[in-house]
């Protein structure tokens, strides 16, 4: 503890405000990263630094804990949609869908074909708009602000489509157990969606030029935050992060839900497991998602009802599913998003447990990957893992 440069008064004042100024010795110090940092979004990391290198990282989540699982136990089944979707902000349709799928399985409902088509389309639109959100965040982290501005503008087009379909922009509250809440507003909406997909597809070249082909992206991400296949499986890393290590696991292919067994798409896999591989996987998946949306539009929505016909739905607040439990999961842009719902036969769920992908790659994996990294690599690792703190906190 020699040669401390922090004056004692400052140290005392910091202590009074429950803050820490911890120069451990001349080169080693403690650094609080977040929760206001753009890269961490809403959680903080306590870094033990040795000069510019990280010796140890401790993830400190909990800033976004809103107790949704507890609140869901006190509310009727359908109402919980309006709560649970707030678990994943950039793609709020994913929690809606996993919860609805689990409740559908408990009740034993056959969701109408039209509703299935709409749900698949909504999920894919959510994926594309979440990729746009990710491009914005990732571009900002490595200092390329322009693609982020473009991505925000293109995301706006999808938000407009959501607005017309669901009546909401960010939180759609659209998919409910048994179907969806509204029908497609007409052929005009389908034409608009096709136009938007075409438009974004045309812009992919610009994204490639300015972001993905950019040598800055390569320099910043190559060889940063490497994990191998064995490590990734042991740590239950899912989604693009797992595929970047060489495991071709995609829920849409392995546990097909909705229309995904009829759709034709490719699963990109790379072997390196570094940040660059994760970026490239994400870029390719964005292309594939646009391609899936085109296929869905070619298929066209089947005619029929968009909600199951069930007499129990007449008294919606008192709707009681039978006893049972179910686990449903979908592939989100961050990974395998799952929900475990237990029903005890009353009108409120007995237990809802959400498995966010960041629970596995946002805590232990992040702590491991940050060891030995430079301070400037922290945002890059965070953004290429695509960490979403609300998944951890819930």
């Amino acid at each position, binding site marked *: 503890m020699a040669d401390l440069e922090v004056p004692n008064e400052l140290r005392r004042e910091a202590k009074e405000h429950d803050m820490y100024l911890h120069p451990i010795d001349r080169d080693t110090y403690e650094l609080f990263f977040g929760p206001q940092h753009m890269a961490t979004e809403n959680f903080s990391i306590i870094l033990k630094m040795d000069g510019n290198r990280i010796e140890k990282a401790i993830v400190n*989540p*909990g800033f976004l*804990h809103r*107790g949704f*699982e*507890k*609140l869901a136990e*006190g509310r009727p089944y359908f109402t919980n949609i309006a709560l649970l979707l707030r678990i994943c902000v950039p793609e709020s349709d994913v929690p809606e869908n996993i919860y609805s799928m689990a409740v559908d399985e408990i009740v034993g409902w056959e969701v109408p074909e039209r509703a299935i088509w709409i749900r698949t389309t909504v999920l894919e639109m959510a994926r594309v708009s979440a990729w746009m959100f990710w491009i914005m965040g990732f571009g900002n982290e490595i200092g390329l602000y322009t693609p982020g501005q473009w991505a925000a503008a293109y995301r706006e087009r999808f938000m407009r489509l959501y607005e017309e379909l669901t009546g909401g922009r960010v939180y759609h509250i659209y998919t409910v157990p048994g179907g969806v809440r509204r029908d497609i507003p007409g052929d005009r909406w389908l034409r608009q969606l096709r136009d938007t997909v075409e438009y974004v597809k045309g812009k992919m070249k610009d994204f490639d030029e300015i972001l993905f082909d950019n040598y800055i992206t390569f320099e910043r991400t190559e060889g940063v935050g490497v994990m191998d296949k064995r490590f990734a*499986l*042991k*740590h*239950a890393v*899912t989604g693009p992060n797992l595929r970047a290590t060489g*495991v071709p*696991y995609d829920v849409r292919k*392995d*546990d097909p839900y909705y229309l995904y067994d009829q759709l034709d798409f490719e699963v990109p896999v790379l072997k390196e497991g570094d940040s660059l591989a994760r970026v490239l996987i994400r870029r390719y998946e964005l292309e594939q998602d646009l391609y899936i949306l085109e296929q869905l539009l070619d298929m066209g929505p089947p005619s029929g009802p968009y909600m199951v016909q069930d007499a129990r739905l007449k008294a919606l607040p008192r709707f009681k599913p039978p*006893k*049972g439990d179910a*686990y449903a*999961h979908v592939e989100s842009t961050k990974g*395998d998003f*799952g929900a*475990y719902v*237990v029903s*005890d036969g009353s009108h409120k769920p*007995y*237990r809802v*447990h959400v*498995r966010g992908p960041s*629970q*596995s790659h946002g*805590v*232990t*994996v992040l702590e491991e990957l940050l060891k030995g990294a430079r301070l400037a690599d922290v945002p890059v690792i965070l953004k290429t893992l695509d960490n979403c703190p609300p998944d*951890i*906190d819930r």
Partner: protein
Amino acid sequence: MDMNEKNVEEKVEESRPELPDTREGRLVKALIEKAPYAEGSVRRERRVEFRVSVERIHEFLELASETFEMLMQISVVDWIKEGEFELVYQLWSVSESVHAFVRTRIPRENAKLPTVMDVWPVAETYEREAHEFFGIIFEGNPRLGPFILEEREYKKHPLRKDFNMLGHVKAIYGEDFDRYDESKTNYVI
């Protein structure tokens, strides 16, 4: 599921019904042969279920980890009427594409369990969460303690069914509440 249903299932298990001759059935059969103390069944396509007593849960999970590479979640359900916690280990097999529920029950009082961190390091996060929300102690996990919650909530283990949410909120934010339930007799959150 309540006691009645559990009894029915136990009776079914006594007669040991034949597992279906599907991919899932064969998978369960192979695992049950190695671990005869566990009960296994096939729920539906790509969903299998195991019931293991708490004494041999670690042994069983270590065995299961050969087929099921990933531990997706540890879900805890508080069955307060029976005085038990049910732990559901959600496993996923990447090679076989099968999801497995491994269920075990422990008494609510003084709940203790061996950790599975040595099998899946990611279990550390799930166990920390289960510990702070339910108060289950995972022996061998070094990082049990406040994780998501603050100290004052952590001590009360809020996801337990006997946690008085309203009382807690009132204690923290005062009596300044204006929302009642439908019959206008109780406060609600």
